[in-house]
């Protein structure tokens, strides 16, 4: 019995795949590649990106704002090998518009809606409110899932200091709306006088008193108005937050943690991994993106500057001398080629050392471990994404000698289209 492949575990069985990780590791690229693979497996998939590189956004057709999914044309899908039943759409999150849409949906009247949309604090707050990007991303994911238009939603998350920021964002928003202080601000009239505090605890009273002294009453009144308008929507908000959480922690979701090979990134990823596991997030895989890979795979050979190298450099020099023009610096070229190989081998070894602990930890917990090599150029088109998907879902057969490799090989998969894609990048 071979364990299910990563694609079977995630793309075929789930409705949501969430890519998480710290900043600068290529989450957006991985999310888009995962979506391409899902389409190639015949699913109707949408990828929600937060902040794609411009050329990638253009390739996905989401360069223009819109906050709605845009379909990748059929001809493009054909060229990627997407079967007739597979479809791919992409969208870029427009935070402001997602918030506005929510206000539209939950406001109890047109008047209430306009009051919120025109409140100056609302305008600033949607940018600055803690976790508002996360909140609106999760809102959008929920909406896309609920619409039932797609089999699978793949989502890129904003770079987070804490792995669970996006998961907690809806809950934090609800807690904020629920907090006693907020109610005090909303209902000053319930209390005698300006902030008479008759029915509230002394602690809260002191807090408000302090806030008032520091900020002046006008500011509190503005906030109060803003919150009052929002309060009417909080029932809808609260119900949403609960549902989003259920959706993300349930069996319909799978998470992929994306890491980079640099030491600091690995350290942060190890913390992420622990936190994700501790919170019951359905984590399917850890992928290290942009790792330096030795040509042909495997470990780079070890060598030192012994006589063996000197003989080889001589042999290379002779070969260059025969091939190139008479004035070609054959000796320098031979030495440079040897140095380049040595320098690159060093980089490959360092990446392996840096990631060894994370790999062990990932495998020990029965999660899928995968690597995507650093490619010579930024991935900026759908072909490039298909290549990344090959590395994720059709990895090289493991050279490990034990049986832990279960998740890495795909049983019964067709002959790998990998080499041709990989070769094309050269």
């Amino acid at each position: 019995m071979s364990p299910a492949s990563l694609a079977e575990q995630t793309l075929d069985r789930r409705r949501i795949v969430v890519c998480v990780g710290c900043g600068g590791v290529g989450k957006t690229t991985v999310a888009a590649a995962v979506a391409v693979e899902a389409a190639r497996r015949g699913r109707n998939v949408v990828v929600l990106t937060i902040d794609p590189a411009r050329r990638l956004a253009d390739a996905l057709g989401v360069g223009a704002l819109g906050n709605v999914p845009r379909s990748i044309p059929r001809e493009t899908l054909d060229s990627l090998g997407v079967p007739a039943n597979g479809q791919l759409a992409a969208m870029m999150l427009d935070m402001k518009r997602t918030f506005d849409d929510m206000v539209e949906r939950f406001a109890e009247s047109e008047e209430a809606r306009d009051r919120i949309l025109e409140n100056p604090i609302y305008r600033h707050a949607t940018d600055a409110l803690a976790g508002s990007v996360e909140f609106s991303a999760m809102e959008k994911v929920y909406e896309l899932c609920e619409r039932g238009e797609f089999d699978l939603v793949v989502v890129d998350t904003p770079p987070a200091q804490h792995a669970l920021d996006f998961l907690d964002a809806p809950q934090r928003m609800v807690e904020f709306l629920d907090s006693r202080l907020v109610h005090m601000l909303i209902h000053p009239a319930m209390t005698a006088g300006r902030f008479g505090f008759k029915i509230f605890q002394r602690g809260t009273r002191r807090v408000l008193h302090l806030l008032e002294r520091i900020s002046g009453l006008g500011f509190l009144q503005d906030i109060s108005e803003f919150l009052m308008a929002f309060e009417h929507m909080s029932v809808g908000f609260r119900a949403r937050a609960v549902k989003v959480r259920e959706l993300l922690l349930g069996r319909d979701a799978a998470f992929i943690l994306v890491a980079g090979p640099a030491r600091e990134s690995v350290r942060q990823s190890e913390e992420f991994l622990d936190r994700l596991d501790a919170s019951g997030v359905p984590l399917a895989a850890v992928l290290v993106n942009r790792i330096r890979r030795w040509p042909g795979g495997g470990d780079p050979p070890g060598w030192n500057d012994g006589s063996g190298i000197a003989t080889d450099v001589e042999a290379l020099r002779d070969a260059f001398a025969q091939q190139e023009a008479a004035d070609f610096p054959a000796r320098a070229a031979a030495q440079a080629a040897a140095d380049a190989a040595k320098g690159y081998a060093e980089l490959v070894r360092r990446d392996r050392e840096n990631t060894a602990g994370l790999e062990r930890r990932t495998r020990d917990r029965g999660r899928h471990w995968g690597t995507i090599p650093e490619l010579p150029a930024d991935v900026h088109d759908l072909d490039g994404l298909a290549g990344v998907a090959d590395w994720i879902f059709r990895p090289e057969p493991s050279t490990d000698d034990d049986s832990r490799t279960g998740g890495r090989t795909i049983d019964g998969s067709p002959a790998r289209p990998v080499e041709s894609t990989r070769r094309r990048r050269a």
Partner: protein
Amino acid sequence: MAGDAPRSLLDRRLVIVTGKGGTGKTTVAAALAVAAARAGRRVLVAEMAADEQIVRLLAPGTPPVGYAGRELLPGVLAQRIDPFEALTEYLVLQIGIRPLVETVMRNQGFRQLMSASPGWRELITLGKVWHLEQMQRSDGAPRFDLLIIDAPATGHGMTFLDVPRVVVSAVRAGPLHHHTERVEALLSDPDKTVLLPVTTAEELPARETAELVERVRGELGIAVDRVVINAVAAAPFPAGLEDLDERLDRLPDSVRLETLPPTTVLADCSRYLRARYELNRRFVGEIAEMTRLPFVLLPRIPTGIDGPSAIEALAEPLMAAPRAEAA
């Protein structure tokens, strides 16, 4: 300001180091601190992140510096500005009754409200920075010659530096209004404060840096006079051999090597180094063009940034005069 060579970073009071995540902001903040200390300045590095990377870079293996701060190297102090601690300090200064403030800070409802409320963290952090800038020694000289702020990563809503402006307009009167005005005045004083964007020569960071510079110049009104381009690959081959990979490709299969890998692998290694180098060069050019700012190049440290020696190696190139054109 074309033509004018920028002043030294060390002649400012406040350098705000920022950039996209993963570009080496903290590394640059640490290297700048080392350079300042070498020049005899007394410098404070203020970090915002909860997990104190600066200690790992300058004094690995030592405990966190915390809100109280500590001298990590001779002349280099580091401090982590925790917003809740800074808020406590501020409220005590304003109200004067520490037990009252501490009761409030412990209040569950208050903490809940604060953890969801926008803006105050940024504001109180910048307020603390202003306060540190004002501190004096007994002889009246500034307590610190230079403050280096390892600011949060840019990206979605560059809110950190936006906040004072928003607050000054949203809060119309009272102590908060006046205090924020002072913070804003410090940030927008080009003689005292400069923003130092850090980027790598790659597409996404380059674009974000261009957007950042645009905003800083426009609505934020904070001085910015150079971009630091970090981890730039050195030319991998001697002049005249730029296409080494292609020449290796053309070698016949009959070349026998004993220790080195086959020529196809040698070609792949050369191809990789060449591609990274050319990519870096291209984006150095694009960054210069998009930001219309001179730049300082920091070399890629082959062994990675893993402690004080790597930081010290970057201090000198960081202080080099900014250039306008790629060499």
